[in-house]
């Protein structure tokens, strides 16, 4: 460490120097930044695959990707990268790592070494996944449905499966770490009901990560064993049951949807309060609805399987339980809107993303209810309606929250400000482009166009062209966002400790925070949103 650094300038970024100090760091803030860099890199890759897919679909017939197999591989990598490397680690591991201990007034997470190990698990898992490219790639889609993935898929599939297995550990360990951190490292006076709602979101997420991810791990291991050793679990030709695989897979992958959205909802609570300078409406309702969603999320996996051949009674029960998840989700949305009432609202870029989230998530929510309805889903299942719905929730929800969160905590992370004008421009492109891309897909789905189609009938051409045009707008929006972030890091103006006037603990320490987060022990005497 450079001794010449004045005491006031000492922060976690200059605490140690050199690449090696980053790769071996135990500081949650630095690990958070490493997640940020990796997630942004993966997002760029996944985004390139998305644009390739949309370009192929700009017209019927073979296009830029040439044939069905290449298209299916692009589709598989887009899905696997975006799910396992971007949206799942995006908020908990990146924003959560940076913010959680600061939110709680702690020096670090409970297990700093485990925290670093989680990052390496993600990196190693990602490397294994990309190894599949040497072995002819993979074309199963991110869902690995059997028996296709066992007997028919291209030979790199087992690498993607093992990669996802290893990345799962990153998620489990992060979840474990956050649960223990939340229970044991809260500052004096930080009772559970004084915790920011982002912490509640992360905590609920962590429960799912710890309980559900091992099921995915076991399922993927069984799949690999079946593929490599010919042991029959899921392939009827070997005496297995392919529908069993779907039960196992969705037992994880449905709760995983909430791993993606619950922390995003937490971020939104922070943004809405900070930029309307108002206490949250219904703190307890929002906090408990996070836990409620997490609990019920374990019992709704079968709504992915209404037409799979699962028992019809199971379909009815799953439809009912899925409706129940709708209630706490609706409560949250109403609470956020109510928080705006009589607020003092500014449209800084993080707030634009938060409002964009509410707009898109509402549409994602109502179409989710349509899909939960048994007879409706029979028509919509595996059509573009589903594709549109989950992009509204995952991109319109989670990614909007990540973008808002990055802009919100950027001054805290780097002690600098980005260009507000550029950030707003990125919002305009992303938000507009998103609707242009995905709204037509609802219509395509209603018209019956199935998903995962390399080619399509003439009648679907027009809307697909609109959709493709929109995807380029999203691409431009994210490039502007990336430039804004890099430019802000390099040449941004110095940021004050609390540029937004927010009340949570992280804004009371320096920007960027010192290595130990706080130079004093924070004492908490009030809730997180005391705007009076």
């Amino acid at each position: 460490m450079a001794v010449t650094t004045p005491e006031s300038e000492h922060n976690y970024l200059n605490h140690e120097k050199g690449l090696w100090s980053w790769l071996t760091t135990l500081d949650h803030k630095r690990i958070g930044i490493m997640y940020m860099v990796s997630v942004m890199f993966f997002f760029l890759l996944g985004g390139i695959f998305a644009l390739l897919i949309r370009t192929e679909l700009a017209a019927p017939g073979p296009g830029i990707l040439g044939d069905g197999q290449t298209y299916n591989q692009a589709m598989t990598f887009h899905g696997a990268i975006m799910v396992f490397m971007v949206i799942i680690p995006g908020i908990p591991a990146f924003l959560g790592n940076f913010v959680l201990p600061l939110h709680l007034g702690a020096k670090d997470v409970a297990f700093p070494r485990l925290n670093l190990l989680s990052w390496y698990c993600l990196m190693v898992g990602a490397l294994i996944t990309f190894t599949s490219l040497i072995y002819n790639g993979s074309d199963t889609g991110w869902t690995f449905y059997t028996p296709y993935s066992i007997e028919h898929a291209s030979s790199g599939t087992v690498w993607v499966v093992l990669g996802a297995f290893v990345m799962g550990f990153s998620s489990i360990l992060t979840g474990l770490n956050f649960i223990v951190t939340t229970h044991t490292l809260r500052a004096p006076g930080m009772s559970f009901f004084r915790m920011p709602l982002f912490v509640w979101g992360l905590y609920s997420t962590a429960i799912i990560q710890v309980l559900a991810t091992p099921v995915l791990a076991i399922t993927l291991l069984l799949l690999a064993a079946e593929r490599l050793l010919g042991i029959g679990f899921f392939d009827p030709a070997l005496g297995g049951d392919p529908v069993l695989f779907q039960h196992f897979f969705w037992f994880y992958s449905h709760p995983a949807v909430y791993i993606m959205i619950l922390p995003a909802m937490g971020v939104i609570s922070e943004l809405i309060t900070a930029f309307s300078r108002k206490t949250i409406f219904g703190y307890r309702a929002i906090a408990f609805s996070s836990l409620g969603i997490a609990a019920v999320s374990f019992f709704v996996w079968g709504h992915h399987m209404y037409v799979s051949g699962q028992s019809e009674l199971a379909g009815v029960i799953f439809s009912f339980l899925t409706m129940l998840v709708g209630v706490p989700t609706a409560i949250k949305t109403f609470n956020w809107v109510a928080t705006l009432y009589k607020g003092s609202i500014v449209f800084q870029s993080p707030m634009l993303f938060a409002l964009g989230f509410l707009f898109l998530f509402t549409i994602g929510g109502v179409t989710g209810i349509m899909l939960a309805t048994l007879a409706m889903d029979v028509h919509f299942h595996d059509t573009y309606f589903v594709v549109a719905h989950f992009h509204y929730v995952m991109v319109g929800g989670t990614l909007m929250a990540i973008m808002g969160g990055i802009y919100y905590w950027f001054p805290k992370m780097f002690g600098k400000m980005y260009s507000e004008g550029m950030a707003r421009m990125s919002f305009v492109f992303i938000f507009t482009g998103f609707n242009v891309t995905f709204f037509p897909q609802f219509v395509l789905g209603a018209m019956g166009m199935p998903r995962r189609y390399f080619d399509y009938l003439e009648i679907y051409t027009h809307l697909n062209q609109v959709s493709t045009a929109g995807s380029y707008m999203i691409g431009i929006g994210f490039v502007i966002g990336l430039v804004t972030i890099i430019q802000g890091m390099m040449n941004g103006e110095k940021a004050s400790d609390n540029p937004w006037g927010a009340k949570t603990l992280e804004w009371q320490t320096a920007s960027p925070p010192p290595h130990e987060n706080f130079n004093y022990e924070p004492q908490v005497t009030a809730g997180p949103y005391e705007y009076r």
Partner: protein
Amino acid sequence: MLALFYAFISQAHGRSFMPIAGTKVAQKVDSLYSFLLVISVISCVLVIGGLIYFALKYRRKTADDKTAYISHNNTLEFLWSFIPFVLFIVVFAWGWLIYRDMRSFPDDALEIHVLGKKWNWDYQYKSGKRTTAELTVPVGVPVKLIMTSQDVIHSFFIPSFRIKQDVVPGRYTALWFEAEKQGRYQIFCTEYCGDQHSAMLGTLNVVSLEEYETWLGDNPYKGLSLAEVGQKVFSQKCTVCHNVNDQRKVGPGFAGLYQKQRQFADGSQAVADENYIRDSILMPQKQVVEGYPPNGMISFQGQLAENELLGLIEYIKTLK
């Protein structure tokens, strides 16, 4: 007010972008869809409208604005939990009722076997007729599809009928419909099944009952009993190697075969029942009778329709 609501529903319905509704079930699904569309639009207008209204009305005026401290409101929170809950339950029940119609198979349905394979559909009619080109069914008659796959999971989707069912290897799944109008309808595969997934298209051809019967009439076995079907198949495919008396040709003669004790090359024994005859036609290497070469008989797997196979079994049973 009600009239306005009704107008709104019919408007939504007209713009629903759903394909033509070809069955009663499809019309029911469309009514539910219109309802969902209407409440969805209302919810979105309320939430997003409220959002925009508040955001504009309560814009920050001065740098040190004070805001009202409103922590919660029990009545309001109860209402906006309870009202969605009731709506969701209504929608759930409505969806369930229609789903029950979709899954209640009429007893008198015309049964057609569907085999999914990479990357086309294969249809087998009870008469023995077998096609891959298109599925032809009569109008106004309930049709039940009994489906399985010979490789990976496929899914049988008729958008105009709003029905879909995965077609899974190793088990039978089923669908039923009763087409209301003659015409040609699109069939898609909706479960990802590999390179040519998007080319696994099909056509459903709904024709009048007379037309259907004429079409089916090309059937070589029309009006024949099962044993007669078997006799016909036997004369075409089996007589090269097998006699109808008990004399050995290349393979054994079949008179008196049924219920006879068979001695196999590996020392085991079995009674020649229906399963044995079926296995011997489809998987002849499974049990080779003592004194015959191990590869003397070729497999007829995939070359016989189910009724041809049943016919053969029945015919062999009659040989005394």
